[in-house]
């Protein structure tokens, strides 16, 4: 290894975000109560937002907090409260024999392979850019991102608009009650 000293603030920020991400993720998969799992999911999402800020993706960090922590986790909590499943989740039950060891082995092989890949490969860093202009630091980034989304990726952006409309209509269709059963209930 080349003996490079990294700046202390960047190491501290990295340690904070890694701790938030991993502790929150372990909480999601171990906590019995789904409400607690949703709250530790928020912790992970905040950690990812910290990592985004540290890597000068300011806009995405803001969107991460607003969309994920603000909308998606609230939707999760709303459904948990609505269904009333906030207790007696059986974590210990293992219906398939040997499911956990196999899952653990598969995950360890995958993650180990990924980390070995990171360790063995070397990328061209600090190059100007692969395509187009170099990435600006800080808030200059936001303008570049907006320009890219509304020019290069305009078709994909419009397609996401259609996707969101379809998702909303689909969710309403799935969650509504049948009209026939409603009238039967009224009769009874």
């Amino acid at each position, binding site marked *: 290894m080349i003996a*490079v000293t*990294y*700046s202390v603030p*960047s*190491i501290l920020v*990295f340690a904070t*975000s890694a701790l938030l*991400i*991993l502790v929150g*993720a372990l909480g*999601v*998969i171990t906590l019995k109560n789904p409400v607690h*799992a949703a709250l530790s999911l928020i912790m*992970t*999402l905040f950690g*990812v937002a910290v*990592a985004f800020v540290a*890597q*000068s*993706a300011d806009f*995405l960090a803001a*969107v*991460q907090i607003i*969309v994920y922590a603000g*909308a*998606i986790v609230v939707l*999760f909590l709303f459904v948990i409260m609505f*269904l009333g*499943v906030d207790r007696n989740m*059986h974590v210990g039950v293992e219906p398939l024999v040997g499911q956990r060891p196999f*899952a653990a082995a*598969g*995950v*360890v092989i*995958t*993650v180990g392979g990924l*980390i070995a890949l*990171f*360790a063995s490969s070397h*990328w*061209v*860093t*600090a*190059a100007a*850019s*692969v*395509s187009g202009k170099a*990435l600006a630091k800080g808030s200059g*980034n936001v303008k*570049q*991102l907006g320009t*890219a989304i509304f020019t*290069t990726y305009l078709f994909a952006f419009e397609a996401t608009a259609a996707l*969101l409309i379809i*998702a*909303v209509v689909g*969710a*309403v269709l*799935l*969650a509504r009650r049948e009209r026939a059963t409603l009238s039967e209930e009224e009769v009874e």
Partner: protein
Amino acid sequence: MNVPAAWYLVVAALLFGVGAFGLLTRRSALIMFMCIELMLNAANLTFVTFSRTLGDIAGQASVFFVMVVAAAEVTVGLGIVVAVFRRKSSTSVDDMSELKG
């Protein structure tokens, strides 16, 4: 000097592994959706790290689109969970076994 990109990539790989393990072992459909969110966030973190390393905005644009798709996926998925709960009074995936041979 900033910390190397590989550190963030390793954290993202570990986050992906934790999410995948939870998805494979937990029985509640709600928790499984949360684990999918963890895996999507690991992919997002990788995109942003490579965006910084390679100096290319395309990685950040990809993260933007992943977030939109994740929001749509959660909306429809939780709609399905609510619809199944009406019928089965359970969110455990083990109770959805009508197609079992």
